[in-house]
């Protein structure tokens, strides 16, 4: 059963990474300045000594460190991420409530950046040393060098403030009371600016990578073989060069998708998008460390899931891997 052992191997590795992140997280809480109980309660709530005493007892903060670690891990593994005293809600509920919005935003941004990036990179590789190719590369360099949050602000300035084409803030028009399709359309309209501005940077990354990868593949011997067959240039580009050039892009996309969740903090902050990125910003502003670390753990979880997914896709795309793993 090569596939089963493969999946087991991947899952095993992911579990180890998750446990490592948990330990890391635990020590971060303890590295935070001041009393861990105060950290958990958030600074402002830490004035009441009796309250802190309760917290200490409840979370066993008077116990030795290994016991605390054990309890903490036990808690997380039973999906207990603790309680946000600032927001007066369990951390898990807060995250789950905000998760769909973030998934929608990052999903859309991922799709936009990957498809447009590969397209632009392919065009740039085919038009190397020609003005149109240089233009694509120039633009991608520009997007690559622009701070994410600043692009977002400039987009708001141009498309919302000056042109008034698209909504600048939020997830849906407040108080409009749309339902059904109208609601979906409204959300989609709100999604455009955040998704595009979040996607721009990553699109630049994929464009550059695709171009480099295609140019290096086009130097390989089998491309000469394809030309010697008398194949048309378009077929060679698509079937022989692009297919091989996409392999490293898959790996990169897996890594970048994880970074996108982090980047969403900035985008969601600018657009007041109600996702976990925005939640992270709020936790940051309120020094709500318990919530902050909960979100951090969740981000890492998402990244691990995504990496496993890319791994599977890579194995489907490259026959050589399947064989050597079997």
């Amino acid at each position, binding site marked *: 059963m090569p596939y089963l052992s493969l999946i087991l191997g991947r899952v095993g590795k992911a579990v180890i990474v998750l446990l490592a992140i948990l330990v890391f997280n635990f020590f971060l809480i303890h590295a935070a300045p001041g009393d861990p109980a105060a950290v958990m309660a958030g600074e402002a709530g830490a004035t009441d000594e009796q309250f802190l005493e309760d917290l200490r007892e409840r979370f066993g903060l008077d116990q030795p460190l290994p016991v605390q670690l054990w309890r903490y891990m036990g808690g997380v593994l039973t999906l207990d991420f603790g309680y946000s005293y600032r927001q007066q809600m369990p951390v898990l509920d807060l995250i789950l409530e905000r998760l769909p919005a973030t998934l929608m935003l990052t999903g859309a941004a991922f799709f936009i950046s990957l498809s447009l990036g590969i397209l632009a990179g392919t065009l740039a590789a085919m038009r190397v040393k020609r003005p149109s190719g240089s233009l694509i590369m120039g633009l991608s*360099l520009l997007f690559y*060098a*622009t701070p994410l949050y600043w692009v977002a602000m*400039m987009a708001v300035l141009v498309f919302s403030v000056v042109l008034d084409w698209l909504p600048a803030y939020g997830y849906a028009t407040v108080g409009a009371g749309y339902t059904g399709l109208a609601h979906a359309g409204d959300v989609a309209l709100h999604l455009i600016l955040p998704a595009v501005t979040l996607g721009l940077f990553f699109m630049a990354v994929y464009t550059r990578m695709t171009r480099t990868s295609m140019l290096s593949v086009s130097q390989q011997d089998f491309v000469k073989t394809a030309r010697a067959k008398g194949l048309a240039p378009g077929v060679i580009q698509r079937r022989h060069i692009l297919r091989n050039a996409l392999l490293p892009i898959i790996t990169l996309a897996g890594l970048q998708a*994880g970074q996108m969740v982090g980047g969403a903090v900035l985008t969601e902050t600018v657009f007041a998008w109600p996702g976990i990125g925005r939640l*992270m910003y709020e936790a940051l502003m309120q020094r709500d460390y318990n919530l902050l670390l909960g979100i951090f753990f969740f981000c*890492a979880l998402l*990244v691990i899931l995504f990496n496993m997914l890319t791994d599977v896709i890579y194995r489907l795309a490259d026959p050589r891997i399947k064989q050597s793993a079997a």
Partner: protein
Amino acid sequence: MNFFKRFAQNRGALIGLIILALVVLLALLAPFLYPDSPWRMVQRPFLAPGEVAGFPLGTDTMGRDVAAGLAHGAWVSLLIGLISTVVALSIGVPLGALAGYFGGKIDDALMRFTEFFQTIPNFALAIVLVAIMEPSTVSIVLAIAIVSWPPVARLVRGEFLSIKHREYVEAARLVGQTHRDIIIKQILPNTLSPVIVLASLMVATAILLESSLSFLGLGDPDTMSWGYMIGAARTVMRQAWWLSVIPGVAILLTVLALNLVGEGLDDALNPQLARAR
């Protein structure tokens, strides 16, 4: 053709170098041009650029001189970008070198460690680290270095893996050179050019990261930075767009310049690859 000639032939790289030189000059001159603290209120708030003589870029929401902020911010950006890259290199290069050279269990252990840091979302980790350590120049530098060393380690490891099987390294083993000598004298010099290229791009990424942290309010409260200026101007974008545009352009130009220089270095240091491009 030598390195400088090849570099000078790249028009983009030259433009990048000029922009970079200007930014460095601005940073170095900041204490002389604007000896006062950039935090000091000097005029009435919301002055547009050119509205009042002596304030070419206007004033911000608190009546602080934007030009002074820009100059002092340049210093902070470059400093943090540079130092955090040096710190990241000093973590990544030795780890990658040891992993690649010795291989086996050492490699396994070090690479698991590296992978772990690569799995954690970069920016989220930086936020958490700075928040936990309390924002300060030191904590920002550390956070940026901690999230940016893994690519260095992987690059150096890859180079070591391929170079350690070159015949000249094996010859050095046969004549009895020590591991230390082989690592430092035989292999390391041959890995330098890709590391230099990566380092120049890392400075750019570090500047972006620092500005993003400052934008979120995680900057050192004692130093003026470009990211902070944009963050402070966010709520008044409709009234005073220039307050966010000006520092944004400054970041964009600096990062762009560093990327151009990095590409130029890459072409000049790896001529075979450049021809393929």
